[in-house]
C-alpha cells in the first residue's frame, strides 16, 4: 500500500432549517409542541430586551462593563433549551440568554456586572458554573464535570459555551482531547460570531470550519446556522441525546454574529463595516423566528410589554439592594479563616470604624472587560 488515502471517519455537515425569510425546510422541522415554541420565543424576546436595557444601564453608569449578546439569542436558547435542570451549564462571559433560561435572576446578573461577587453565586440547587472571564479556561471544567457525572453514574449532560476566538487557546484543545479520550457526556457549543473583539475569524484560524476541529479529537462536529433557532435546537438535541446515550461528545459550531459591541467599552466601527453589520441584521434570529411563529399563528399579544415589566421589576429589585459589606471579602477565601486573614479582617473592621470609605467612589468611569474607555471616558 504505497500512497493510499485514508477514508475520513467523519464528515462535516451544515444544518439550516429556517432561512432568513422564515421559509421552512419542513422535512427537518423539529416536532416542538406549540407551548415550547412560545416558551422559546418568550425567552428570545426577554433576552433581546434585557440586553438592550443593560446597555442603557451601563451607559447611565448604573452597571459596569458587560458583553452584549444581541444576535446570538438563537444560538444560546436553541442549545440550552435541550438541557434538563439536572444537566450542567458552563458559560463563558456572553451567555445572558442561556443564563436567564437556566434560572439566573436578572438582578444577579446586574449585581455581577456592577462589581458584586454576590452576582456570581448560583442557587443551591442550580447546576450552573458562574461566568468565566479567561477565555476557554472553563472548557476543561465542563469535561471534568462530565467525567464526574459518568463516574458517579448520574444521568447528567454538560453543555459549555465559548466563542470562535476561544478555539485558539490551548485549553480548548486540551479539554476537547480529554473529552474524546474519555468519551464523556459533554456538548461543546461554539458561538462563532465571526469576531474576537477586533480579530475576524480568518485571522483566528485557517481551518475552513470550526466544526471540523472536532475530528482532531475523534468525535463529530456539526456546523449550524446559529441564527436559526430550529436548526440550533435540532443539532443540540441530537448532541445531547448522543451524550446521554453514552456515545460521547459533540462540537456544535453555531454560525452567528455579534450585532452589538464586543463589550460596552468597545468601538466596533474601528474594525468592521456598517455594510457587514447591516447584512447580518437581515439575518436577525428574532425577526426570522417571529415570521415563522406568525405563519403558525403563535404570536402572543403584548409580550414585549410583559417582558419589559419583568425587566423593570428586576432592575428595581437590583437598585434596592443594600450596598456591599466590605468585611465579607474574607468569608470565602478558605473554608476556615486562617490567623493572618483574621488579623487582616480585624484591621479592616477597625479602618471602617474609623470611617474609611467602604463603597466605591461614585464616579461614572466605565471599566473593561475591554478597557480603554475606563480611563478616557
Amino acid at each position, binding site marked *: 500500500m504505497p500512497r493510499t488515502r485514508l477514508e475520513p471517519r467523519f464528515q462535516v455537515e451544515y444544518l439550516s432549517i429556517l432561512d432568513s425569510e422564515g421559509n421552512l425546510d419542513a422535512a427537518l422541522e423539529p416536532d416542538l409542541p406549540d407551548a415550547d415554541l412560545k416558551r422559546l420565543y418568550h425567552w428570545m424576546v426577554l433576552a433581546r430586551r434585557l440586553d438592550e436595557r443593560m446597555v442603557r444601564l451601563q451607559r447611565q453608569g448604573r452597571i*459596569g*462593563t458587560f458583553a452584549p449578546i444581541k444576535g446570538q439569542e438563537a444560538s444560546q436558547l436553541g442549545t440550552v433549551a435541550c438541557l434538563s435542570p439536572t444537566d450542567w451549564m458552563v458559560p463563558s462571559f456572553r451567555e445572558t440568554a442561556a443564563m436567564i433560561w437556566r434560572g439566573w435572576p436578572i438582578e444577579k446578573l446586574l449585581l455581577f*456586572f*456592577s*462589581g*458584586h*461577587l454576590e452576582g456570581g453565586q448560583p442557587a443551591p440547587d442550580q447546576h450552573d458554573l458562574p461566568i468565566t*472571564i*479567561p*477565555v476557554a479556561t472553563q472548557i476543561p471544567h465542563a469535561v471534568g464535570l462530565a467525567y464526574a457525572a459518568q463516574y458517579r453514574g448520574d444521568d447528567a449532560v454538560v453543555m459549555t459555551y465559548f466563542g470562535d*476566538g*476561544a478555539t*485558539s*487557546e*490551548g*485549553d480548548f484543545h486540551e479539554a476537547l482531547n480529554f473529552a474524546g479520550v474519555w468519551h464523556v457526556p459533554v456538548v461543546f457549543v461554539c458561538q462563532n460570531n465571526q469576531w*474576537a*473583539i*477586533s*480579530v475576524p475569524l480568518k*485571522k*483566528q*484560524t485557517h481551518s475552513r470550519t470550526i466544526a471540523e476541529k472536532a475530528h482532531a479529537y475523534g468525535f463529530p462536529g456539526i456546523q449550524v446556522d446559529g441564527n436559526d433557532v430550529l436548526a440550533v435546537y435540532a443539532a443540540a438535541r441530537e448532541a445531547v441525546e448522543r451524550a446521554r446515550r453514552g456515545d460521547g461528545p459533540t462540537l456544535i459550531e453555531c454560525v452567528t454574529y455579534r450585532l452589538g459591541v464586543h463589550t460596552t*467599552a468597545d468601538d466596533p466601527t*474601528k*474594525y468592521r463595516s456598517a455594510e457587514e453589520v447591516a447584512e447580518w441584521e437581515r439575518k436577525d434570529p428574532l425577526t426570522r423566528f417571529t415570521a415563522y411563529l406568525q405563519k403558525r399563528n403563535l404570536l402572543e399579544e403584548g409580550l414585549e410589554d410583559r417582558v419589559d415589566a419583568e425587566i423593570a421589576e428586576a432592575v428595581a429589585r437590583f437598585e434596592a439592594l443594600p*450596598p*456591599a459589606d*466590605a468585611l465579607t*471579602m*474574607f468569608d470565602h*477565601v478558605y473554608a476556615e479563616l486562617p490567623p*493572618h*486573614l483574621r488579623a*487582616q479582617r480585624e484591621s*479592616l473592621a477597625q*479602618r*471602617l470604624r474609623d470611617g*474609611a*470609605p*467602604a*463603597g*466605591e*467612589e461614585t464616579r461614572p*468611569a*466605565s*471599566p*473593561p*472587560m*475591554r*478597557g*480603554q474607555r*475606563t*480611563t*478616557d471616558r
Partner: protein
Amino acid sequence: MVKALNLALRQEMERDADVLVIGEDVGVDGGVFRVTEDLHRTFGGRRVIDSPLAEAAIVGTSIGMALYGLRPVCEIQFSGFAFQCFHQFENHAARYRMRTQGRFHVPLVVRMPFGGGVRALEHHSESEEQFYAHVPGLKMVIPSGPRNARALLLSAIRDPDPVIFFEHKALYHASREEVPEEPETLPLGQAQVVREGSAITLIAYGAMLRVAQEAAETLARDDRVEAEVIDLLTISPLDRETIVGSVTKTGRAVIVHEAPRSFGAGAEIAASIMEGAFLSLEAPIRRVAAYDVPFVGFARERVNVPDAARVLAAARETLSY
C-alpha cells in the same frame, strides 16, 4: 501615559526595522487601551500583528522571533491572562541565554496592563509583579508616569534580555505629563528618589507612587515630617543600593503595593532593607498592600487597594514607634 507609550513604540519602530508588535487586537483596533493606536496603519500587518487568541503562542512565537534576531514587543491584553503564557516565560524566555551559554538570547518585551481601581471585572484588576520578579533571567519594570514610561519602554526594547513591562491601567489616561519629542531612555534596574526627606522612606511603584506622594505631602503639611519617597521603576533586578541608602538615613520605611501582602514584592524589599540597614532601623518596616484575598469585585475594591490614608496611618505608627 497611553500617548507616551505609543510614541516610544512608534519611534523605536522607525529607528529599528527589527522591532515589531504582536498581540490580541493590537493592530487594526490599536489595542484595547489604544497604546498601539495607528501603528498598524503606519507599519502594516506584518509588523503590527493581530494574533489569534492564545497567549502562550503570542509569547512562544515571539521568543522564536527574538532568537532569530528580531525585537518583538508583545502585548498581553491584561496581566491577569498572562498565566496562560507563564511557562513560556519561566521555561524559556528567562533561560535561553543560560541554556545556550550565550549563543542565543531573547530580546523580548512583554507589555501588560495591570492593577486595579478602574472598576474592572475579575482578572482585569490584579497585580502580578511578584511572579515575574522571582524568575532569574527576567527583568520586571513598572513605570509610574508618562515620561518615565516612555523612557523605560525605550530602554526595555533596546535591552538584550527579556523585560516584563507592566502598565498601570489607572495611569493610562489619568496621568498626564510633558514628554519631550526626542528619544529619552532610563536605565533599567535603577530606582529614583522622587522626594527627599530624612524622617521616613516611603517605597512604591506604579499607581501606588501617587498614593505614597500624597501621604508624604500630608506628613509634611500636617505632621511637619519630611518623608523620602522612592519610585522603584524596576522591581527586578531590585535597586537595593538606593533603597538601603535611603533607609540608612531615615531609619524607617513603609512599602506600598497593590498586590496581596503575603509573599509579595514588599517582603523582598523589607528583607533587603533589614539585611542592609539593620543597625539603622528605628522601627519595623511596614507593608501597606492588598489583603490576602482573591479579586473582591470592584464594589469592594476601594477598601482593598491601598490609599493615602492607609499609608499615612502606617507611616505615623512607624514614626511614633
